């Protein structure tokens, strides 16, 4: 039984931005993230009987994650290389003066690169916690690991990130 269009609009579309942001961090690639979310929406329509009423966002995130990992494993089975990252720079905040813009751009790029360099397991728990504001319980359900594992991954992710960012972190810290 496919998901009725009305339910799709009510349940999936409100979380599309969040799903895309998560997919973008998983895949580290804009076009890839778009494909993953689109596939995930198709799957969501097909599998919506597995949805409980109160957890649409976590449910959609779990589908996005499964979609991405099944693509990765298909590709590695076929011996294909993973796509190169073709990200484009984010537009600068024009409300700042040029020097502050440069500084901000530099800071954003450095933090983003550091986060993208983290192993996928660490990167995703940090994104789900810090950017999506999810609880350990929600993250555990999406990633399908015990809560204790979520906790230890977060600890190691933060350790690594602060080690990478620390030597030159001071100018970043001064940013408002």
């Amino acid at each position: 039984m496919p998901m009725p269009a009305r339910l799709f609009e009510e349940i999936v579309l409100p979380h599309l931005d969040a799903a895309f942001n998560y997919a973008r961090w998983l895949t580290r690639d804009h076009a890839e993230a778009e494909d993953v979310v689109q596939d995930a929406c198709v799957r969501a329509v097909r599998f919506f009987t597995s949805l409980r009423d109160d957890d649409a966002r976590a449910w959609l995130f779990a589908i996005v994650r499964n979609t991405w990992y099944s693509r990765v494993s298909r590709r590695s089975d076929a011996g294909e290389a993973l796509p190169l990252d073709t990200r484009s720079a984010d537009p600068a905040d024009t409300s700042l003066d040029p020097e502050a813009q440069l500084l901000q751009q530099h800071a954003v790029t450095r933090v983003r690169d550091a986060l993208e360099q983290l192993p996928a397991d660490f990167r995703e728990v940090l994104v789900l916690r810090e950017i999506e504001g999810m609880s350990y319980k929600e993250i555990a359900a999406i990633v399908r690991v015990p809560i204790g594992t979520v906790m230890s991954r977060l600890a190691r992710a933060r350790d690594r990130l602060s080690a990478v960012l620390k030597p030159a972190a001071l100018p970043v810290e001064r940013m408002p």
Partner: protein
Amino acid sequence: MICDDVQRDLDPYVDRELAAEAAAAVREHLSTCAQCRQRLADREAVGRLVRSLPYYHAPARLRARVSGRAQQSRSVRQLAAWAAAAVLVVSVAGAISLVRSAATRGNAIVGDVVDAHVRSLMAEHLFDVRSTDQHTVKPWFLGKLDFSPPVVDLASIGFPLVGGRLEYVSGRPVAAIVYQRQKHTINVLVWPVSDETIGLKEQALRGFHVRHWARNGMSFWAVSDLNDTELTQFARALQDR
């Protein structure tokens, strides 16, 4: 408590996932240990940096494509209906029972509150009055509603007031007071009720968390995609004012 124990608890402490007693023990240790305070500061700094990254919004063409899919599946269903009346009966009956069971699980007001929240974000009509000053937001409602909603700023505990607007819930105009928590928007819908007090109720619908309570003749509904723990913290703080 020794530093090793504190290190183990530091992440759940930062994430407010620690039980009250354990959190108190960490706090006590931190007050005497500069080294652990530094570790805490590092963790909080990492969090701030990650949260300061630009959010990747879904491109418009992706939104159009997946919305198109939903439309398509609807017309395919209609087509199938014309082709085979028997299929129609089965699929429509199935769809209705699914919609109905979803509707009865949450009560009607929760659905309206979540709808109002989603509408405000998707139509980008979050504010009629945009201000972080409670003395600007509160008077704005004067003359627009037949009641005066309580408006307080909670910036001191990390939930800054950002504005307000008029909203319609269950066919009546209500006050929507808007707060921000990092990248998450919290809508608090307020309207008068008969003099009853309702303690904090936790609900969730379609991936959004809802907190409801009533006091001093006002009914409050806070809704957000913020996690359970922080939304409860927010609701309790608002209740205490």
